[in-house]
């Protein structure tokens, strides 16, 4: 048992019971957010660094040519990976991505894919033979909670500023031919349930204390992705309340994206 963590758990839980949070925010407040794009300026076609309070993540986009999937011969390809690199937390270990990293990447991927944020049908070089492949890679630099929303913001900000290379004489030429075709901006909102309280954008101390977690990916009017995590449970009404809050908050967060 980790004594420090147990004590924090009780402390955070008691605060929530009294309607307060450890960093003084309201239950539905998101931490101060900064987004910086084009930070990997010579090698990545798109990139963004997002700070959500002390949580710090970097997303890089690579656009390469490849063969399409057999079941989608006339569509480009997108894929998402996440690495919880050991510099970000004493709890992250070296080695292959574990289940937390896999879940993180898949939930970020889900909002982007299901909202059809990237217009994959426009990423065909030669039908059935050659298409553009967009790789979204997330690097967590400092983990202070809510990696899901930080990574989502980093990914969509990076994609939103991604440029397309040229394809000439069977080769990719790294010169700008245009922008990555973008339809929508799907934003995710993650809530933590601590005792009977539900808070938006949990910091790490709150994540240690939480019973369950719920993420909603929305583009304002439509819902594209959801994921419940943690070993606790939600009442059906609590789920509806979080979905409403996420849809209501969408506009505020969208303003931050350049």
């Amino acid at each position: 048992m980790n004594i420090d963590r147990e004590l924090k758990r009780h402390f955070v839980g008691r605060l929530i019971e009294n309607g307060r949070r450890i960093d003084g925010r309201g239950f539905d407040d998101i931490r101060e957010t900064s987004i910086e794009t084009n930070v990997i300026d010579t090698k990545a076609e798109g990139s963004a660094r997002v700070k959500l309070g002390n949580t710090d993540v970097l997303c890089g986009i690579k656009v390469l040519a490849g063969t399409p999937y057999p079941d989608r011969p006339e569509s480009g390809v997108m894929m998402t990976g996440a690495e919880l690199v050991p510099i970000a937390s004493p709890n992250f270990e070296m080695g292959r991505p574990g289940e937390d990293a896999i879940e993180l990447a898949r939930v970020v991927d889900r909002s982007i894919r299901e909202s059809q944020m990237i217009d994959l049908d426009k990423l065909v070089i030669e039908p059935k033979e050659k298409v553009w492949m967009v790789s979204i890679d997330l690097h967590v630099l400092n983990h202070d909670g809510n990696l899901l929303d930080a990574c989502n913001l980093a990914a969509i900000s990076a994609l939103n500023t991604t440029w397309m290379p040229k394809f000439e004489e069977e080769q990719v030429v790294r010169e700008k031919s245009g922008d990555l075709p973008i339809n929508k901006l799907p934003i995710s909102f993650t809530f933590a349930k601590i005792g009977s309280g539900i808070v938006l954008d949990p910091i790490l101390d709150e994540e240690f204390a939480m019973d369950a977690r719920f993420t909603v990916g929305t583009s304002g009017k439509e819902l594209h992705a959801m994921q419940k995590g943690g070993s606790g449970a939600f009442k059906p009404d609590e789920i509806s309340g979080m979905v409403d809050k996420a849809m209501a908050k969408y506009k505020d967060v969208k303003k931050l994206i350049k």
Partner: protein
Amino acid sequence: MGGKSETPLIVKGKRLDGRKFDELRPIKIEAGTLNRADGSCYLEWGNNKVLAAVYGPRELHPKHRQDNTRAVLRCRYNMAPFSVSDRKRPGPDRRSTEISKVIREALERVVFLNYFPTSGIDLFMEILQADAGTRCAALTAGAVALADAGIPMRNLVASCAAGKVDDTIVLDLMQDEDNFGQGDMPLGYIPPKDEIVLLQMDGDFTKEEFEKAKGYAIEGCKKVYELQKAALKSKYKG
């Protein structure tokens, strides 16, 4: 998901297999089908065939994974190579890793893990034939297998999905509806507690559609729960 259907999936108010919008596929649950396991369950759900087995509580290895306050529940969702149309490469992939995680988190709510400090409880779910909705089938079978193993539990977890096809909310998508539909939402639920322990969603739902799908899935889970109880009772009534 997200694919567009060439042919309609709903014709004259009926689905491809003749079901109503809020109708489950036929489900058959049998508890205690494997002799070596401490608990097991065989489940058929439409064309899905799932086998779940529980080993434990038993000593947990490697030792550094032991928790001296509670048992560690380990869940493995695994698809057999022959369970899908294209052969599935054996072994864990990113999808099954994520599914194993959400199933474990759903079941941790009901298993009294604190009764067995330092030990491990292993739940293995093998998808022998897949026809959409396998994570729900696996979670449903897994809960029965845990109960069959005599593991102390607060309750069973029932699971069922709702989705959107041809702009209509329907219960329990089958393969074609999943492939060509507009959204899928698997849900795990504890009926007597009215608690949601698993919820995922992908696709394109409005708030109203989401509420309707949630309602359908919860009603579906209630029916699945009755079948789970009946399977356990029929094994143990003598």
